[in-house]
């Protein structure tokens, strides 16, 4: 018999522990990755299923999008006009962005480009702490501090309005936008700054001419994330907006937001009733709007990259 030649090669057919760990981790990571898709589809299916009987039955599309009369609890003649809610959410979010964009971009530029050493570290920690304040606390600030302040300063009858909710929401969204925008600015290679610096560009010229254009994608993403945050925020808006169904004529009018309506009314409804299903229809609307915002952000960013 031929003796097996002594081999220095490892057994090529034996699967080692590391091989199994690798396979196992791949499966685990796959599950983690795929779960995001599963959840998003699951949520959409669930809220749509709850809303569908209303959408195909009682709902009048014309009324839903053009009428400000949201009277789901009327015994004789319930109406489901969501226009006031849509306008409420849009106006509050719009004002919030007017507040948040300059603040957050300014803060991000300062932290990323101008602040140094300890000052910068402290600022970063503070901004991150701001982002961690619960929304109900912001709502409380709107209710108990901003409310009397607005009444006194602007001499208006009620301080719970678009202005209050917009400012609160803007301050709430600013820290997270700052963090994302700062990441985008930090991702711009230092070689760009150095090259511009060597050309005799001032700090501001470097920021304006080189860093901001280079970070444009990330900055767009930061702003759109803030918009998404504004659309979805519930508690603070519920507390600060006045929660009145109303087509506003100015920023000192009270409004009601889509999210706040769902939060405030869902507990009071009978499961399966038109009112219940109408609230889920508002949920579908919110879902679609946020989806479109994110998709737009993605396409914008891709478009820029391709160019």
């Amino acid at each position, binding site marked *: 018999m031929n003796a097996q030649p002594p081999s220095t090669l490892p057994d090529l057919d034996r699967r080692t522990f590391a091989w199994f760990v690798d396979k196992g981790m791949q499966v685990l990571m796959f599950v983690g990755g795929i779960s995001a898709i599963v959840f998003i589809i699951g949520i959409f299916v669930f809220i749509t299923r709850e809303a569908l009987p209303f959408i195909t039955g009682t709902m009048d599309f014309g009324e839903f999008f053009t009428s400000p009369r949201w009277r789901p609890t009327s015994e004789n003649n319930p109406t489901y006009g969501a226009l006031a809610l849509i306008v409420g959410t849009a106006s509050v979010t719009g004002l919030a962005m007017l507040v948040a964009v300059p603040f957050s971009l300014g803060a991000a530029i300062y932290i990323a480009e101008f602040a140094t050493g300890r000052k910068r570290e402290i600022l970063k920690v503070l901004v991150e702490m701001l982002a961690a304040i619960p929304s109900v606390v912001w709502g409380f600030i709107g209710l108990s501090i901003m409310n009397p302040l607005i009444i006194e300063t602007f001499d208006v009858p009620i301080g719970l309005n678009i202005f209050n909710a917009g400012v609160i929401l803007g301050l709430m969204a600013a820290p997270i936008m700052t963090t994302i925008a700062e990441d985008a600015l930090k991702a711009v290679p230092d*070689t*760009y*700054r150095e*090259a511009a*610096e*060597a*050309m*005799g560009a001032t700090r501001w010229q470097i920021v304006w*001419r080189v860093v901001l254009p280079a970070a444009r994608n990330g900055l767009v993403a930061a702003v759109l994330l803030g918009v998404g945050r504004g659309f979805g925020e519930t508690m603070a808006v519920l507390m600060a907006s006045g929660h009145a169904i109303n087509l506003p004529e100015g920023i000192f009018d009270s409004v009601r937001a889509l999210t706040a309506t769902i939060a405030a009314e869902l507990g009071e409804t009978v499961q399966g009733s038109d009112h219940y299903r109408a609230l889920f229809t508002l949920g579908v609307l919110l879902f679609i709007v946020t989806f479109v915002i994110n998709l737009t952000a993605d396409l914008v960013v891709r478009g820029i990259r391709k160019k």
Partner: protein
Amino acid sequence: MVDATAPTAAAEAKVAVRDLTIRYGDHVALKDVTLDIRENEIFGIIGPANSGKTSFLRALNRMDTFTPGMHVEGEIRFAGHDIRKINNLYALRKRIGVVFPLPVGLPLSVYDNVALSPRLSGVKKRADLDVIVERCLRRAALWDEVKDRLKSLGSLLSGGQQQRLTIARALSQEPDLLLLDEFSIAVDPVTTMRIEDVLKELKEEVTIVLVTNLVQQARRLADRTAFFLTGECVEIAETEAYFDGRVKDTRSSDYVEGRFG
């Protein structure tokens, strides 16, 4: 020791460096370097890695303000001004063009890369910018390759093209002094030769400081060359002196002949 305030040498040299010492924290990158760079010469600096060549360049246009921990002592006079005492740092840097080892194509179009510096200085008219951009790109031997795609991103050009773009950008500053830091590291030999030809022509108008790893490149281009070794300026001599044994320090000729480093 040379008297730091000695006016004689400073008056005639484009750049007069006196007792220049550069530290990063406790680490001394360059110590007691004294040398003059003359008007319209190509001044070569050779030496192995960590010899302080790049630190020297960074000190010349005050990039130390951009580098945390970098401390510069001694005196550098540029065109008669002590660059540590001037009020407008940006104006100084505008007169000094820099080309880095790895090309930095800013994420702007080819046109905007070259037009950036003029724009920073306030040139606004499109026609004026067009003239500057074309002239600088031509002088950097890049115009023919990019004239049809001035609007495309500068960072999409090849490495060699980007390096010439960087040179065009430096020229758009209309500098008095051009600092080149191992510009040919990421550039193919053919392009390197083209850039070297460009530099020989430029010498008529600007003073050039050329830091290079390639001894032969220094020999081809530099009128005089300094040899830096671990932070010390060992030798300053006519470049040819390194090759025919006229240098004072044996380490200099050893280095160019490849016996160490």
